[in-house]
């Protein structure tokens, strides 16, 4: 009954002729030199013409944080709102006009600290928006306090003796809220990032993409252990739908579930045949396995990159629109006159 992949014909008119430059605004970019935000911005600006939206149909909504300045740099409609509330602002933008392509840009503080609840609820409602969470595991804009994704024990300005809060994992939160598309990528891997952004744009539903983003000022090298080119192949694993989960520079390692449902790393060829490897199913009716994968992390496991979940559900904006259409069909288009008289009336002469 509902399309779950957005067809682009409708908006593809002149959009096809646009170039990267059309999406670059006239504002000077003001992140610190070397910040991971630059590469994400560059990827988005490069990709936009290919996604086939008209410039005027695209809205970037953000909260507050370094990452949340993103909308200023995109020559589309943009709303740099208040701290943590981008998902709700986006809900209003999208519900009021479901034809818009709405993007939410948020940070680990903005999206998981003050804005955690809005993020949770926009995901459970399955509004058709694309959410990119720039996870640098630190509060950048306020100059370096630990964030909800900072590692336990981290020493920062506000935790000089080490943070005592256990971190949150945005992928887990998204799975528990039943977001319909859930992915993870890396700021510096422009190719993978482009794939992910393209996929989330094509997905009709609520899409959350976590991007590991380096803050070279307050949390430099936060992901270096597994993002560094030298080790990346061995310390990350790409989730590819319908394929057995393998990784390693020589594709020589894989993941399987043991009898208790726990993940294990297997050396392919050494520990046995490859046919007991876990085959990734992003549309698994039970999200338990995706959750199991989300628990994998360095150093025990390679860090999963790619699409954790991609399922189909009618979107909130569509349901809202349909309900209005149905009511209108059933009751007729509302007339003010009628509404005013919709009660027991009497006449005084």
């Amino acid at each position, binding site marked *: 009954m509902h399309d779950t992949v957005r067809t682009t014909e409708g908006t593809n008119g002149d959009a096809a002729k646009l170039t990267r430059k059309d999406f670059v605004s006239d504002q000077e970019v003001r992140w610190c030199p070397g910040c991971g935000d630059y590469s994400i911005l560059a990827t988005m600006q490069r990709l936009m013409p290919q996604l086939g939206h008209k410039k005027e149909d695209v809205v970037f909504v953000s909260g507050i944080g370094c990452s949340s300045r993103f909308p200023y740099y995109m020559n*589309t409609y943009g709303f740099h709102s208040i701290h943590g509330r981008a998902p709700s602002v986006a809900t209003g933008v999208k519900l*009021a006009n479901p034809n818009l392509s709405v993007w939410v840009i948020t940070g680990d503080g903005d999206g998981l600290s003050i804005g955690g609840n*809005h993020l949770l609820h926009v995901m459970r409602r399955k509004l058709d928006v694309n959410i990119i969470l720039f996870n640098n595991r630190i509060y950048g804009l306020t100059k370096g306090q630990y964030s909800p994704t900072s590692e336990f024990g981290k020493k920062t300005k506000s935790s000089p003796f080490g943070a005592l809060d256990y971190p949150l994992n945005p992928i887990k939160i998204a799975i528990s809220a039943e977001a319909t598309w859930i992915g993870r990528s890396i700021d510096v891997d422009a190719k993978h990032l482009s794939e992910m952004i393209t996929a989330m744009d094509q997905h009709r539903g609520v899409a959350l993409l976590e991007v590991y983003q380096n803050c070279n000022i307050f949390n430099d090298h936060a992901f270096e252990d597994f993002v560094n080119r030298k080790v990346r192949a061995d310390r990350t694993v790409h989730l590819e739908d319908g394929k057995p989960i393998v990784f390693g520079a020589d594709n020589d390692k894989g993941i399987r579930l043991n009898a208790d449902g726990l993940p294990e790393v297997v050396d392919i060829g050494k520990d046995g045949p490859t046919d007991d490897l876990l085959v990734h199913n992003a549309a698994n009716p039970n999200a338990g396995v995706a959750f199991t994968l989300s628990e994998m992390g360095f150093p025990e496991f390679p860090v999963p990159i790619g699409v954790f979940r991609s399922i189909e559900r009618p979107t909130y904006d569509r349901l809202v629109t349909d309900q209005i259409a149905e009511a209108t069909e059933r009751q007729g288009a509302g007339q003010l006159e009628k509404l005013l008289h919709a009660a027991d009336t009497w006449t005084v002469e």
Partner: protein
Amino acid sequence: MSTTDAESTSTRPDPARTEVESVTIRFCGDSGDGMQLTGEQMTYTSALGGKDLATFPDYPAEIRAPAGSLPGVSAFQLQFSSFDIRTPGDAPSVLVAMNPAALKTNIEDLEEGGWLIVDEDAFTKTNLQKASYEKSPLEDGSLAAYRVVKLPITELTKNAVEGTGLSTKQSVRCKNFLTLGILYFLYDKDPEPTLQWLTKKFASKPELIEANTRALKAGYNYGRTIELFTSHYTMKRAKLEPGTYRRLSGNEAAAIGFVAASVLSGKPLFYGSYPITPASDILHFLARYKNYGVKTFQAEDEIAAVTASIGAAFSGALGLTGSSGPGVALKQEAIGLAVMTELPLVIANVQRAGPSTGMPTKTEQADLFQSIVGRNGECPVAVVAPATPGECFHYAIEAFRLAVEHMIPVFWLSDGYLANGSEPYRIPAIEDLPKINVHTRTDPEGFKPYARGENGQGPDSLTRPWAIPGTPGLEHRIGGIEKSDIDGNVCYDPMNHQHMTDLRQAKVDRIAENIPDAEVFGEEKGKVLVVGWGSTYGAITSAVEQLQNEGKSISAVHLRYLNPFPKNLGTLLSNFETVLVPELNNGQLLFFLRAKFLVPARGVNKVQGKPFRVGELRAVFEEALGA
């Protein structure tokens, strides 16, 4: 059943009837006793009978407190009258108490010598205990000041409905209709409309129609048959303006008004809200109006509600958010965002008694400070406040008119008393409703997001254009950081900040040119001027009118625009020797009047979760008049 029908079953001639001008009745009983329904039927019947009227439902704080308990008492008061009235009456002249708890919590208000009708069957030992009565008040002489009518209402009801197939429990629930029948007879009301209503209401449950019909008729005939009352009453029709009338509560009026604003502006309505007493009904009503294109969003909290509405406003909808005091407190940071981004937004606040959770089901006017100045930074907004349930409709439209024409957030302030109270409302002709001038920008030529006036195509030279996503060539970015004028870019320049601060204030001040002068009730000069706002209108005006009729030099101004004030207000204030400001708070409007106009105005304040009584205001006004 018509009165003729009723007559045919009667054994006695109709009694002689005393003509009265106005009557105040209060029904009270257990939450389960159907007192609200009873009151509403009495209201409806009175309205059809051509009376002017006003009502005041008073719900218990608990959802369903234990039967018979003091916190479980629910009450409904109405005044109906052959002349123009504006309040549900101070002290009831008739109190109907269905059980000891209801008697205990309401008897104080009954006027001396008033009628007290009680269901004596409910005065059991257990019920007396639940109401903390040591002895039955029906027996200890404590009710000597009233004309007590003790009736075995429960028994009568059971007998009346016997044979309709209802269980005992169900039968007993008809006792409110039996009581209603008695009152219909006492006040010469036609039971027919209620009988028709019953038929519609219980269309699928004929046994309930039958039982309640029987109960009502039984009550009516009982009233006629037995010499219950020493007097019986009748009342002339009120002289009301000709037209079609309906009953309208403040919350329903608001909902319809906001839909009307949508129709009048041609922009779809978006309502972002989170349930809260006493504002929830606005959500409930609007959720039904889907065929008007209304989108209701029940958010996860008030912050999500207001920010979604701001997003919707950016997207070109009429962004509305509604709540009550504590919820509005949570919205304030976001309202600042709407001020900074100069988006139209209406914030409906149905005030309740505070601070903090306070007394959610009780009324108060203590959020005026919060509305006008309760945000961080210099953050001016406009504020309007309806004075009656019916005005809730008109000022809903007005709030959006100002929001859209000035690209600014507007507070719409109601309260629990307006929200649940209702009045006969003359339905206006659609063509008499105000116009709302929307100036949406579509021309990309020379577009600047923070351009003003003509350039911005706004109706006011300070208004920035409404440039809506989806419009080619108007791509732009807005946000909560200070913006440069015209360009709308992020800007930390000191002089720009001064300019924008002044501009935001000027935008609000400029609204004074777009609203009517304040009207004076009475002479334009004199001894005492009473200035009020919001739901106190009825009580203030009634008290002032009484004194005017006695030749006293007293006038009233009731403000519907609280920020900015109407242009003529300063002059009006200076025309009187004494300015009194009655409010259901500790003096908030008072504060603005004194600070702005430096007038030695004095407050008349009541913070009891209850509206003013006409009498108590009258006494204060008399004192000020030196009478």
